[in-house]
């Protein structure tokens, strides 16, 4: 069972603003019945160009309904400029938080809002220059990038939780990983390193020796540190690991995870070419 806040339950059981505004000034439909949730948002402006009325119709789970209800509450009374500044985080916070796996519901709310405002302004509904990355759920690179920036996402799994991208066939996992890495390099702050390079290498060596090698050896494998270039830790796998098809998973999920935890959060583990 999901851990929903009381506010989410309240908005699910007694949603506000269900329905469709008559003769709306702006409207949008996002999501689809195939992906399991969809939201139709309609709004009307008053004479001061503030949102007077906003209504929703949602197909989806409890949190999809609750976020739609919250969204309409939040934007009522706002100017369109103010409404555009509402982020998916704001929607989630309004509800006292959402489970990680349900963050895509808040992103859906944000998308519907943007599209409805674009519709009012008569702008094209598809972002210019955007490319579909996830074919299963029709998620574009722009949407993925925005979710990564606004929520500081670092893994494909997190991107899936927030945008649904990668949640179907999984063919786009590599492309999502690339977007994550591109953004990570972009946003890297050249802050003064806390460790000297030598100290860092020593720490990496120690961590591999103490925390990583014993458990790999337990499974008949082994690992050697080959080089450290900036945040890239280059290793070679030995023994059972060298022939194991799952060794890249071990490297990412275990070795890299452990090094990030114990040495530095920006470490990327790479395997030396075999």
């Amino acid at each position, binding site marked *: 069972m999901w851990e929903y806040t009381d506010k989410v339950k309240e908005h699910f059981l007694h949603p506000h603003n*269900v329905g469709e505004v008559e003769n709306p000034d702006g409207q949008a439909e996002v999501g689809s019945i195939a992906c399991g949730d969809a939201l139709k948002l309609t709004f009307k402006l008053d004479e001061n160009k503030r949102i007077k009325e906003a209504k929703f119709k949602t197909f989806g789970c409890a949190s999809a309904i609750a976020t739609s209800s919250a969204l309409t509450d939040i934007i009522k009374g706002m100017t369109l400029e103010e409404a555009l500044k509402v982020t998916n985080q704001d929607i989630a916070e309004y509800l006292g938080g959402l489970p990680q796996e349900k963050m895509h519901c808040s992103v859906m709310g944000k998308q519907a809002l943007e599209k409805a405002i674009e519709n009012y302004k008569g702008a094209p509904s598809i972002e210019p220059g955007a490319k579909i990355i996830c074919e299963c759920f029709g998620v574009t690179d722009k949407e993925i990038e925005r979710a990564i920036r606004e929520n500081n996402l670092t893994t494909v799994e997190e991107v899936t939780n927030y945008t649904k991208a990668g949640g179907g066939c999984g063919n786009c996992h590599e492309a999502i990983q690339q977007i994550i890495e591109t953004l990570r390099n972009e946003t890297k702050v050249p802050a003064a390193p806390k460790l000297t390079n030598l100290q860092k290498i020593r720490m990496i060596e120690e961590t591999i020796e103490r925390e990583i090698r014993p458990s790999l050896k337990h499974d008949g494998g082994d690992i050697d540190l080959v080089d450290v270039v900036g945040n890239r830790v280059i290793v070679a796998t030995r023994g059972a690991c060298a022939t194991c098809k799952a060794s890249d998973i071990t490297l990412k999920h275990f070795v890299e995870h452990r090094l990030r935890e114990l040495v530095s959060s920006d470490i990327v583990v790479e395997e030396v070419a075999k």
Partner: protein
Amino acid sequence: MKTIYLDNNATTQVAPEVLEVMLPYFSELYGNPSSMHSFGGQVARKIQIAREQAADLIGASPEEIVFTSCGTESDNAAIRSALATRPERKHIIISRVEHPAVRMLCASLASAGYRITELPVDKNGLLDLENLAENMTPDTAVVSLMWGNNETGVIFPVEEAAAMAHGRGILFHTDAVQSTGKIPINLQESAIDMLSISGHKLHAPKGIGVLYVRKGSKFSPFLIGGHQERGRRGGTENTPGIIGLGKACELAAKNMERENTEVKKLRDKLERELLKKVPQSRVNGAAVQRLPNTTNISFEFVEGEAILLLMNELGICASSGSACTSGSLQPSHVLRAMGVPFTMAHGSIRFSLSVYNTEAEIDFVIEHMPAIIDRLRGMSPYWTSSAQACSNN
């Protein structure tokens, strides 16, 4: 608020009779059945009785019963043993609708170099035995097909499938976790080599299971340790669990008739009335070849998690094959294998009954479900347009 529990394929209530026989083994009768003294030995004798009770339910001999910790362990032990005892064979046949205990194990075996064939099912969830015949090769080590499906209740013809596998010298395992106690099983008259049972699906507690291993067949243990279970499963016995499971098996044999009359009648009433009262709803799974306690109904244009949470407000417990309830983004692999359209799969609800359900409970559900679906459809952007489309026809 009273709980109406219609989620018995997830887990069941421990029968009061079962709990009663278990209690002494948590307190005064704590002896180790392997001990030399009679304080432990008396527990060993009780385990022997439980072994006979479990064997009786499935038409087996007591020495063919291996107690395990759960259905998943039984499934893992069976398939791994089949591979270990036939090391030259590298092919496994399962179906696309197996429980994760089998599917995920096979996915992991696939990455270790085994070839896995997943047999498809038709729109009613049924298996084509000719397709099984075509896929068996001299390299096939084991065929593992579930007896009754946990999500739809659809029954596979495992006895015929086992005979076909045997004819080709291939081992046959079945996950009978859902079917044990609900339909008659007689292993003496079948070619099934291994069969998995889970205690908590038949009114025993969680943490106890059975693997049936046919007499005379080679077996390679999954848990290696002491000589318990004749060396087929190391580890000190879960004595209260085993003794409780024995009692539950005895009760299940007695209740089998009720499952197929009283429970089936309530299930049929629930299904019939919901389909009648809720437009654009349908049953997922074959009508006849189905466990007597299960119905899986899709309500189009609404989402399963939302339905479950509104049912929860009334104390009604069931489950859903929708994507949102699983934490993944795709609806149930079983419904997808059957080609259930996404519009239907997301709104699927599984009701699974037991002998403890009453007609008053079923009437309550029949009375309240239509309003729940209406309420959600009222919020759904798809409902109005679809309803209009229908009235235009």
